[in-house]
């Protein structure tokens, strides 16, 4: 996905890969000098899915509060990511960083985790499995609804 073309307020349906990580995994990553996994051009989804039912690809999944992880955003951009996905407004630092690194912040629907799980077509654990729902995971999604909250120029829907 060419995120640089997106403008704050745009609604899209995304097909492709997302890397799931949240507070605990990012705290661990911050102790590495070189990133232990390839995050180049990835979209990071701030989430911690519920348990996977036996006949399903993944359990209920939805965004968590992004603002808690603002302090790790520059680290993620330095590791090569191009977008983050979560819920809620973020600090002014995030607008500055999105402008600096040509990155984007997307909102995903919050409190719609049973419905969103139906958009996931593949799921695997990548790293820190012992963190359970907070492990770093990879999902492939189809028709996943997103809204551009902060674009790569640093413009925000809350401005």
């Amino acid at each position: 996905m060419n995120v640089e073309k997106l403008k704050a307020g745009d609604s899209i349906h995304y097909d492709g890969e997302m890397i799931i990580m949240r507070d605990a995994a990012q705290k661990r990553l911050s102790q590495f000098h070189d990133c232990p996994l390839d995050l180049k051009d990835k979209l990071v989804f701030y989430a911690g899915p519920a348990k996977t039912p036996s006949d399903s690809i993944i359990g209920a999944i939805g965004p968590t509060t992004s603002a808690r992880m603002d302090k790790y955003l520059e680290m993620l951009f330095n590791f090569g990511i191009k977008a983050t996905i979560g819920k809620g407004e973020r600090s002014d630092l995030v607008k500055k960083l999105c402008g600096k690194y040509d990155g984007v912040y997307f909102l995903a629907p919050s409190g719609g985790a049973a419905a969103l799980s139906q958009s996931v077509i593949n799921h695997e654990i990548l790293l820190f499995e012992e963190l359970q729902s907070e492990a770093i995971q990879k999902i492939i999604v189809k028709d996943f609804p997103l809204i551009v909250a902060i674009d790569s120029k640093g413009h925000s829907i809350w401005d």
Partner: protein
Amino acid sequence: MTEKEIKEKVKQMIIVANTQINKEIKPFIDNYNGPFCNVLYDNYHISSSKGLPLCQDTGMVEFFCFLGIDFPLKRPLQDVLDEAVSEAYTKSPYRYSTVDDPLFERKNRMDNTPAIVHVHLVEGSHLEIMFLIKGGGSENLSRLYMMTPTASKETVVEQIVNHIEEAGARACPPLKVGIGLGGTSEKAMVLSKLALTSPISKHHDDPRYATLEEEIKSRINKLNIGFQGLKDGISCYSVHILTYPTHIATLPLAISVDCYLCRTGSVCFER
């Protein structure tokens, strides 16, 4: 009524609260036409038909128990309710969201215990239990302000509205707001949580506080936070105030909020 029957009933109610949309909330979701409205509408149908939780954050379970002194109980209520939580969460596709040590290891406990249990001893031979499925996103908005005893009604309203304006979008609005006024610091916090178990339609018995609830609700709705924090639709379902006598030098003000799903339950057991 045995402890096992209490556990089984509470377990079933936890499952209902996690998967079935709150009946008072359903019309608000059905009437919302803004961003992501289809996802929210589909969500409660899918959760119900597939047994998936409405939200991936299946919370900590907070119980408010009113235990009649003549109600026969042979085991600690905490143990019975922990078993209900553990069985509901290990047997359902919910998330284990509790960690053992809060600061150092933060190792997942893998059964979502402990429940947070508040027990009030009352007259009678019944056991009334109310609970909240309380997610972390809304819990992080809990606040305690030790106001001065001379604070005016206006100052109290400003404090509440300012807090919701600053942080409300992070807790999946529209919000139910619980206010604890008076008592001591911890009493006010517990009252603000207990207030969240109130049905939306319920108002304070004292007309002055009922009016205040409406005033705060109206002020929050004027903030135009909206569903999903996207400025579309209402911002607040209701405000519920619970009060308690307090010290001449204090006026504790506690604020708790519940997310748009308002996952609650209540049950009363008779001896």
